[in-house]
């Protein structure tokens, strides 16, 4: 693959962000836990817990019935996607489509300074997120 996928985070759903932050703060210390960021287009709140340099757990809390993940929360899904940073998101998506990945719609994420992001399903129906550097 020409475009390199740089691992950034594992996304996991949480039912209550305050409870999850409390737990992860106990585990990794307050300096490892980011502020909570609201992602308007996805109707979720997110918070990043630093594991190592540029490697995070992304805590994702649904903000209502219309959010993309609300049904997954009800089904008790926890870990559900891996996020990668990429230099050129458009050409990476094209390359992945050639490998049978199925893209969803682009959105701009408040968690990444408004940069473009996109979710895709792999041929095995694993969900990944690309984040424009």
């Amino acid at each position: 693959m020409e475009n390199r996928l740089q691992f950034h985070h594992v996304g996991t759903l949480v039912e209550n962000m305050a409870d999850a932050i409390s737990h992860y703060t106990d585990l990794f210390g307050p300096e490892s836990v980011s502020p909570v960021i609201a992602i308007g287009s996805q109707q979720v709140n997110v918070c990043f817990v630093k594991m190592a340099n540029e490697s995070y757990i992304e805590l994702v809390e649904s903000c209502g019935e219309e959010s993309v993940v609300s049904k997954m929360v009800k089904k008790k899904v926890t870990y559900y996607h891996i996020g990668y940073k990429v230099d050129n998101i458009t050409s990476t998506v094209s390359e992945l489509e050639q490998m049978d990945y199925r893209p969803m719609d682009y959105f701009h994420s408040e968690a990444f300074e408004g940069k473009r992001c996109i979710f895709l399903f792999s041929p095995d129906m694993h969900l990944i997120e690309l984040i424009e550097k």
Partner: protein
Amino acid sequence: MDKNEVLIQLQEIFRDTLDNEEVVLTFDTTANDVEEWDSLTHIHLVVSIEKHFKVRFTSKEIQSWKNIGELADGILAKK
């Protein structure tokens, strides 16, 4: 295969994929009418439909359907 046969088969695919035996489709059905049909399950449905009907849709086609009738037309156009 006519459009009504496609509709019947689509209903079975939707019931299996969404794990809901109560799904009832008509040509006018949209994602707003089926609780489990969201942007994530949409991709699962497309893959199941492609496997069942042995067709392949482009991203543009996948985003163009406004209801089940248009999806059925899209399937028939490829058969």
